[in-house]
């Protein structure tokens, strides 16, 4: 699969408009200078040769070197991993902590005010653009109240409080859409489980309602919820460009966009391969988690 991705990405980039040499040379460069740069980057060689060289390196674990920064693509990705993983992790922690109980409660009180409010919130969560929500949160918590910084990222090594202060707004912004998504899926899955015979049996046995909801309904609804959470993590790591831009977080999303705009072919190829790998790994983990979440599933 990764080989297919590699071929596709390579071909798409080479056939898309855009010449990195012209971009790198600057506004006042002559055609001759641009041709020199193109030759220096190896872009004047036949495509098959370029692909062969790149693939050979990839197979030996080398993603190549950025045209611009002249450092290893793996190093560039490494520099951006912490902000992206941290943002993704905190976002999903907030999203799961809020959405799963909400979804369970909405299913439990199906048709009641809480259920309707949750559905309304879900529509809102899906509909409000991320940047609008981001600006609103910045306006309130940073500009008006002055509680949190407007922008930037602080490494965990710089102190946990500083790290959290910088990440709480972007993570909250991003989590809204995931809260909406996971809460809806949780509600639907728990609602379905609540109609099953074993729930009636559990209630008939006199089990407390909380135990019925958590140990019986939610446990049986866990597979679709875990699937959505997994996909959410993969999407988050694959780049949340708008959030990273508004909050000036130097993550993988911005790296990807910068590389695409600059036609930095090795970097684009490298990050897309990396994202593919993450998708494969996350999907594998989700599949493996099914065994623990539902003992009936065997591989």
């Amino acid at each position, binding site marked *: 699969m990764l080989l297919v991705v590699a071929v596709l990405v390579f071909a798409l980039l080479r056939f898309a*408009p*855009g*010449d990195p040499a*012209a*971009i*790198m*040379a*600057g*506004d*006042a*460069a*002559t*055609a*001759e*200078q*641009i041709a*020199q*740069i193109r*030759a*220096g980057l190896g872009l004047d060689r036949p495509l098959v040769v370029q692909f062969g060289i790149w693939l050979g390196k990839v197979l030996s674990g080398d993603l190549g070197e*950025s045209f*611009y*920064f*002249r*450092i290893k693509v793996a190093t*560039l990705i490494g*520099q*951006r991993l912490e902000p992206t993983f941290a943002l993704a992790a905190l976002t999903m922690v907030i999203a799961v902590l809020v959405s799963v109980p909400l979804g369970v409660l909405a299913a439990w009180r199906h048709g009641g005010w809480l259920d309707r409010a949750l559905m309304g919130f879900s529509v809102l969560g899906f509909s409000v653009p991320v940047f609008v929500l981001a*600006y609103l949160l*910045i306006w309130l918590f*940073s*500009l008006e109240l*002055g509680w949190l*910084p*407007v*922008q*930037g*990222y602080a490494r965990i090594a710089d102190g946990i409080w500083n790290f959290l202060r910088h990440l709480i707004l972007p993570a909250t912004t991003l989590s809204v859409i995931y809260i909406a998504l996971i809460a809806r899926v949780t509600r639907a899955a728990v609602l379905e489980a609540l109609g099953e015979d074993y729930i009636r049996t559990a209630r008939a046995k006199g089990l407390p309602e909380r135990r019925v909801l958590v140990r019986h309904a939610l446990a049986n609804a866990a597979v679709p919820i875990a699937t959505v959470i997994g996909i959410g993590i993969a999407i988050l790591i694959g780049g949340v460009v708008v959030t990273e*831009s*508004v*909050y*000036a*977080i*130097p993550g993988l999303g*911005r*790296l990807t966009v*910068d590389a695409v*705009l*600059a*036609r930095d072919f090795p970097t684009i190829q490298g990050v897309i391969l990396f994202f593919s790998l993450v998708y494969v790994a996350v999907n594998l983990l989700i599949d493996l988690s099914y065994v623990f979440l539902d003992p009936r599933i065997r591989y």
Partner: protein
Amino acid sequence: MRRLAFAAAALAVFSLATAQGKVLRVVPHSNLNILDPIWTTQYMARNHGYMVYDTLFGTDEKNRIQPQMVASWTESPDHRLWSFTLRPGLTFHDGKPVTGEDVVASLERWGKRDAMGQKLMTFVERMDAPSANTFRIFLREACGFVLEALGKPSSNVPFIMPKRVAETPADKQIDDATGSGPYIFVKEEFKPGDRAVYVKNPKYVPRKESPSGTAGGKHVYVDRVEWNLALRDAQAQVNALKQGEVDILEQPAFESYPPLQADKNIQVVNSNPLGFQYMCRFNHLYAPFNNQKVRQAALAAMAEEPFLRAQVGIKEFYRTCPSMFTCGTPYGSPKGSDIQSKSNMRKAQELLKSSGYDGTPVVLMKPTDLASIQKLPDVAAQLLRQAGFKVDLQAMDWNTVVTRRVKKDPPAQGGWNMFCTAWVAPDIWNPLANPAVSGLGEKSWFGWPTDAELEKLRDEFARGTDEARKKVLAEAIQARAFEIGTHVPLGEYVNPLAARRNISGFVTGPGNLYWNIKKN
């Protein structure tokens, strides 16, 4: 116990702040992705160059060339031998002294990349360094722009590097940012797309003169300058400056000025009063702009004011300028500009009718992601349509424009007819620096006009040593450029920086210069 803990924490914070010293936090106008200011003409690479490297000469606020690394120089009576002596005490960041050999190697590399440098090298017979602190330039014949070239303030600036670095082939990027400038680049802290860090060079010996433009004493009053490369959203930049999370925004978006000017903690400073000039460029290779009369019709249609109003919008930030060379500089003149400056739409329509224009659509490239110029093509399309042109306005990102303008294919096969851009003043302020007034055909800047008369005049200008004669020649060059329609100048604008009130000492220059800046 709690008080003791608080005191300890406060002490720790204070110690940290003291250890870091004064940090100037800057949001540059763009991303820094190439660190070789000779290899590329990108302005961010130039600004990085001014932090790290020093120059032989500088250009002061009144656009006069002044010595910088050079202590003294002489010119032979026949103007063919130039001898220079370096200031004492010049050292590179690695502690080694700057020598004439370093200078010669740096000039040789620059002369292979920069357009003005290449022109200078056509006059240079050889260069040498007779002693450690001197160097000489031997010319085949006299030329009138030796000092202008060496003191060139914008891309590519002839920055002086150690010989071992300057010996890197001109078509390869350098790996080593060792310079002798007022700041030292902290390579270990450079994270592309995130931040670039410079620390004060404690060994730098500034000149005694007051700082002026890229000349004068480069005194450093902060310990560290951090370029925030991640903060690129216009609104987020404003918010960060308002909250004091950054100290300087180099180029706020035009729509950001009202809230910035309304904030009492923020100052708007015009440190580049000559500013920038907009222009639209014709492709002379293909119809309809391979016809001089059609180009004149377009010139007549494209009055400057509508472009400036639409793109800049703030009256005090723009000015019409009937010159292809920056207004307010020695060669700025209205000579020959009547076709554009005194024209109107009816005249444009008449000119187009008499030109034999056959309705070939004008492929006009519009960058959608570059806020500073993205409205120009819309205005151009509207004015050209009013004049009777058919216009095919094609939207794309700026880097696609940059890529496509290199192509010499017909417009229907991926080529183009027109694009618009902006230049900082020193890049266009004389006939040698301004790439748009060249008539060298396929060797010219994109658009490739061919005109022997224009080239003859430019050559004479290059050879001229009498300033009055050079002014006459510059006017003749401009008149000829308007006559054949090399391009359409669209007026000038400034894009002042915004800074916190506690920042002072801004130096006027083509880019943003970070010496003499104080943070209280």
